[in-house]
């Protein structure tokens, strides 16, 4: 009895601990970001928000890398597909800075917008990817299916998190209000967004792996610029 109770209690704690950072990132309808330290409001500093968001993006990239490696292992294309794939990513139409200096030269608003565009663009494809994996199996393990779901959720969460960061930055006056708000994020979708349906799953994973790496690096650059840290 005791062990069962203890186990359930520990599971509950783990879940609680895991949910806490998610809640802070995703509670858009819940408590808004507090300003001026309103009473009863837990103020998250911008630095804290950035840390969470970057951790989140790192994890997302890790999962995408794992899935991509798994795909390579089991459905390994005999040849290097990169030449072909490079043309087929549906997010290729989004203009992104392709180097550190380019990213550093970009305005904060632009950079934030690029990040959001990328995240928005991947919401649907990843969801359908997970659906495909869950239903058709394709010989994937449950492990892969879980990762696909996690990835899909993470994109969603990360997008909300970045929106929160943008809000905070706008509140603090660090950024102008030109960044699209939550409602208008949908407008960021590339016009020909149906192209991703044609991509094969391997290509999709490759593209997402690349894009998640982009998001990660852009967030890092943004953080370094906005939140002064050692090394920046």
């Amino acid at each position, binding site marked *: 009895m005791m062990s069962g109770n203890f186990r359930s209690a520990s599971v509950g704690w783990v879940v609680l601990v895991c949910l806490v950072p998610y809640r802070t990132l995703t509670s858009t309808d819940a408590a808004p970001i507090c300003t001026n330290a309103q009473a009863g409001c837990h103020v998250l500093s911008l630095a804290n928000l950035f840390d969470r968001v*970057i951790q989140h993006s*790192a994890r997302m*990239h*890790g999962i*995408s*890398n794992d899935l991509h*490696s798994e795909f390579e292992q089991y459905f390994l294309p005999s*040849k*290097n597909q*990169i*030449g072909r*794939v*490079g*043309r087929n990513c549906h997010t290729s139409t989004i203009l*992104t800075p*392709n*180097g*550190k*200096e380019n990213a550093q030269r970009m305005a904060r608003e632009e950079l934030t917008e690029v990040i959001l565009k990328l995240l928005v663009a991947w919401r649907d494809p990843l969801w359908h990817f997970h659906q495909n994996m869950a239903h058709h199996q394709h010989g994937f393990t449950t492990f892969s299916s879980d990762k696909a779901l996690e990835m899909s959720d993470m994109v969603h969460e990360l997008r909300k998190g970045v929106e929160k960061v943008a809000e905070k930055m706008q509140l603090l006056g660090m950024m102008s209000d030109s960044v699209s708000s939550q409602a208008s994020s949908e407008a960021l979708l590339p016009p020909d967004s149906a192209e991703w349906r044609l991509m094969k799953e391997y290509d999709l994973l490759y593209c997402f792996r*690349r894009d998640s*790496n*982009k998001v*990660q*690096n852009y967030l*890092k*650059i943004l*953080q*370094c610029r906005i939140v002064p840290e*050692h*090394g*920046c």
Partner: protein
Amino acid sequence: MAASSPSWNLRLLLLISSLGGLVTPGSAFLSDWSRWTSSAPLEPHFTGCVSRDQETFRCWWSPGVFHNLSSPGALRVFYLKKESVNSEWKECPHYVYSNRECFFDTNDTSIWITYCMQLRSQNVTFYNEDDCFTVENIVRPDPPVSLNWTLLNMSPSGVSYDVMVKWKPPPNADIAMGWMRVEYEIQYREINGTHWEALEMQQHNQQTIFGLLIEKEYEVHIRCRMLGFSKFGEFSDSVFIQVSEVPSRETTYAFTIVVVFGIVGVLVLIMLIVVSQQHRFMMILLPPVPAPKIKGIDSEMLKNGKLDELNLILSGGGMGGLSTYAPDFYQDEPWVEFIEVDAEDADTGEKEDQQASDTQRLLGLPQPSSQGFSNTISFPDDDSGRASCYDPDLLEQDTLIPLATLRPGPPDDREASLSDVEAQKSEKKDMALAQTQNAGPQTWVNTDFYAQVSNVMPSGGVVLSPGQQLRSQEGASAMQEETQKKGKDSKAGDETEEKKQKEQQFELLVVDPDGSGYITESNAQQSSTPIISPIPGEGHQTLRPQPVEPKPAAAAAAAAEDNQSPYIVSDSPFTQFNAPVSDYTVVQEVDTQHSLLLNPPSRQSPPPCLPQHPLKSLPAMPVGYVTPDLLGNLSP
């Protein structure tokens, strides 16, 4: 070129690549496949492209077997950057011909963009689609720098130790800002070993190596790779770790010496004390082994025979507070001891019967020499009943002798003396008595000497717990029938014979404080003594005062022949012989007729002649304890 040339060329290519300091085979571009596993490229090809900081990268090529193209400029490098649909091939921005290397600086390097490389000679283009890559996938970070180690701690045994290794991230990678996020891997091995032990990868700038052994030299190096990617950078220069055990040995020696000297000193001290015979110290150092003692009882008191004090204690009146009815108390008691002590007093017959069990003697059992049973406790004078009031065997009526009495079966002479009393009894008594008489000889069980008193009823009845062999039921009922008649000698003899065939039984004989000797339970009932009460439970027999009836000698003889248990189980309508009789019962007192009273009644007028008994001074006790001295006093 003959057929041997391909293999020769292969070796040449290997040699060239190794001399050129190029990346090892299998690390080119995206995949880790060894390019040598596939068909060895004989034409000019790229051997690898690597970026160190994710901001620049280099590519190396080889002319293959086309030695005529090995001169600088014969081969030209072109790359395609797939930024847009209209991108075109451009030539390498910076050649390093000495290395056959093409270097792309930050202006020409774009991350997340596909590059494809091409070699062109004057009229031939050597292009492999596999040579396309994106820069972030070819990043191999430089090794960390400033690798050093410090001793963390030493194991208590001095055999192993832990080491903290620290380093700095590669300087040319913008790790601080976070443009590159790396994880480190430390590997170590013994100097002369071949297998590298790899520690878990982590992102901090320090790590602990556990469990290194002293007197062994270790080699440690480190490398790193980008998080989320698969290509490792090169290993750093090795650092050597060695810790000798000299300091620990010294401390061990010192400790050993101290301990040895300490022990020697203590031993010397002890010897001095022992030799000098200082009693006090001796007591401290070598305390005497405590003799076994009973709680609350002084062994000296036992030896001195201070029975009154002893009995006081045993009854619970003393501070010791022995539990009066604890059955355990009687277990394994050396009762035999007491029997032996008083054996000297039993002259007649007792001594003859050396083979008679001590138990029987204690009980006054009819010996094979057909002695009667006596009402005296144990000793033995069981040959003749004590008719005289002044029989020293008898105990005074007003004193209780705390002695478990083991009455043998049929009384002989005593019963004759009590015949008067018996006549007053009802037939039931006779039954019971005869029963006891008859059952006695046959109910003796050889194995158990004693019946144990497990409880004493408030009314005075004694509850005996069963002994080892319990088989009283059948015998009891059988006896009951047979004891219809008066316990006469002849009848007793018949019954005795019948009883012989019965199962062994236990019988408890209760001494009648009236002085009539023994009465059965039924007798006790009818005698309306207040002490008689129903006996509860199975497995217990209540002793009741019972008139002693004359027993036939035959019965006695029969009793002697059979394995007799030293108990007589009293039969009563409400008592079943369900369970065996317990081993002991306590003699409360001895009446004038030399009967052992197990249930002292309310004080009646003492018989005219009160037998003197040596235990006058004994207080009344439910549970008794008799020392050899006391027993000696008891017997005549």
